């Protein structure tokens, strides 16, 4: 049971949730209660004592948002090339292989078309366990195509973000994905498209500095680390400890950068309300 060996301080939480349970028990990083895993699954991986939200993968969110299998995956065939033939301590191509085996996904993001109640939506979900949720060309292209689909078919767009930032192993290509996605969002928004971003733990770097912070409505799961620079970098730069709760969802709410914090159990309901408010025909060729 790996949870015992992980850092316990809230600021440095690194709990990863695998979709296949690898143990009967889970220790809550929030309140240190020992939780029965089967019970946790019933509460959408939220601690019943302190409401700590464990990290989820795409399949979990599909269950929360869509009824049964009323969805289809978009562009599942895209996977990373290694444009720079990058090698540090490990080679990028090996990292990709390992991450694919570990997560069962070809890259960080999966995109879907599904029915959230009566509303058809395009949904993207990022997986932090795939090379830190880093955004490279595949994320850029998949999000870009998801936005195009949303615009051409007048379907609202929802992105569930989890990322440490852009993928260094793709150099400038990864940085330019910020511009690529933001450009697509600009056109989608001008045409009247509705975009909701949901920030989960953690959303930092290039993803927060592009589509994370560009939602018409920006929602956040409780306690998620959200920011541009990572806390360690800030601490090193300023040479002092960071205030309690700094860069957490509640902090961003207080500072005015997220619209609302949503508990997983109200996610579907809140999304429905926003979809009813903002869904309209999009001028596809605007």
């Amino acid at each position: 049971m790996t949870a015992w060996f992980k850092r316990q301080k809230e600021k440095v939480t690194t709990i990863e949730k695998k979709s296949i349970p690898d143990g009967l028990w889970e220790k809550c990083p929030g309140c240190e209660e020992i939780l029965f895993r089967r019970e946790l699954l019933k509460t959408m991986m939220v601690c019943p004592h302190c409401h700590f939200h464990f990290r989820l993968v795409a399949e979990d969110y599909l269950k929360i948002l869509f009824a049964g299998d009323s969805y289809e995956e978009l562009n599942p065939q895209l996977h990373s090339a290694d444009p720079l033939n990058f090698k540090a301590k490990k080679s990028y191509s090996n990292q990709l292989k390992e991450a694919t085996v570990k997560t069962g996904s070809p890259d960080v993001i999966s995109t879907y078309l599904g029915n959230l109640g009566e509303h058809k939506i395009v949904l993207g979900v990022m997986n932090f366990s795939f090379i830190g949720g880093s955004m490279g060309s595949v994320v850029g292209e998949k999000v870009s195509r998801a936005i195009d689909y949303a615009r051409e078919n007048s379907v609202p767009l929802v992105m569930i973000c989890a990322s440490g930032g852009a993928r260094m192993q793709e150099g400038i290509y990864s940085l330019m994905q910020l511009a690529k996605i933001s450009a697509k969002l600009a056109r989608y928004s001008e045409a009247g498209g509705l975009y909701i971003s949901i920030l989960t733990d953690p959303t930092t770097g290039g993803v927060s500095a592009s589509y994370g912070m560009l939602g018409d409505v920006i929602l956040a799961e409780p306690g998620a680390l959200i920011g541009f620079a990572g806390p360690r970098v800030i601490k090193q730069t300023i040479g002092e400890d960071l205030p309690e709760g700094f860069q957490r969802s509640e902090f961003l709410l207080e500072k005015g950068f997220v619209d609302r914090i949503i508990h997983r159990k109200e996610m579907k309901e809140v999304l429905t309300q926003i979809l009813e408010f903002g869904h309209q025909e999009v001028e596809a060729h605007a």
Partner: protein
Amino acid sequence: MAGFYLDFEKPIADLDQKIDEMIEMSSKDGTDLSSEIVRLKEKREKITKKIYSNLSRWQRVQLARYPKRPYALDYIERLSPSFVELHGDRCFADDHAIVSGIGKIDDYHVAYVGQQKGKNTKENLERNFGMSRPEGYRKALRIMKMAAKFNRPVICFIDTPGAYPGIGAEERGQAEAIAKNLMEMAVLPVPIMVIVIGEGASGGALGIGVGDRLIMLENTWFSVISPEGCASILWRDASKAEMAADAMKVTAQDLHEMGICDEIIPEPLGGAHKDYDLMAQQVKKVIIKELDELMQLETSELIERRITKYDRIGMWEE
């Protein structure tokens, strides 16, 4: 000739020292060393050419950060002697790490946005070493929107080690400020020329770096993270920066090969700092040439091309 030399310029530094000594000697005791001095100067020229025709990526990174290099205001003053600086984001503050304002380049009225480093410690404290806070990005956007209102093109100078990672910057929405600039710049209805004059690190650089043309000076770099940052994460050792620069392929030449940089502006022998005026003239020539073309485009065509340009960037398999 004495002054600051980079490691790889040691042979040049040695020769400069010898030349200086000979000049001093001949003026002191009247010995005629002129032919020897000429010979050494020729040798110096030759060695300089040799070194500069074979720069490694890491050497270019060092040149891009050379403290004597011309910074944004050095170019702006030369391109538009009557430049009028405009300050503040009308929200919180005036960020001195970004300068902005209006000026004329030949017949073109343009808006400028530039990341500005300091020439010495005092200036660097004022400029925060060219690391902007959210108010810098918001000021930049304000000026760009004003340019759009009056149908004037925007010239952006990129030169930053990154957006500032501080408490206040995060509290005031660094990520939101950058994200918003990316989105707004993508559809700004006037031409935007982005010119990398030094270093371009990460989202902090891109925050004023979305446009119709990406021009880079010969000895500059632009990437997703600094070589040191990459090295400290992927090698767990910041001193492996040289390897990281090679692995990430960060130079103007690399980006040009990838089709991301549109044009490289050559620098004077020894780097941009050897001749500010000549360098500024080269930059001006390119700006005029590009504006002549971009200003002809219909707005819808301009924006469509810009979005398509970014849409094509990336490498994947399917």
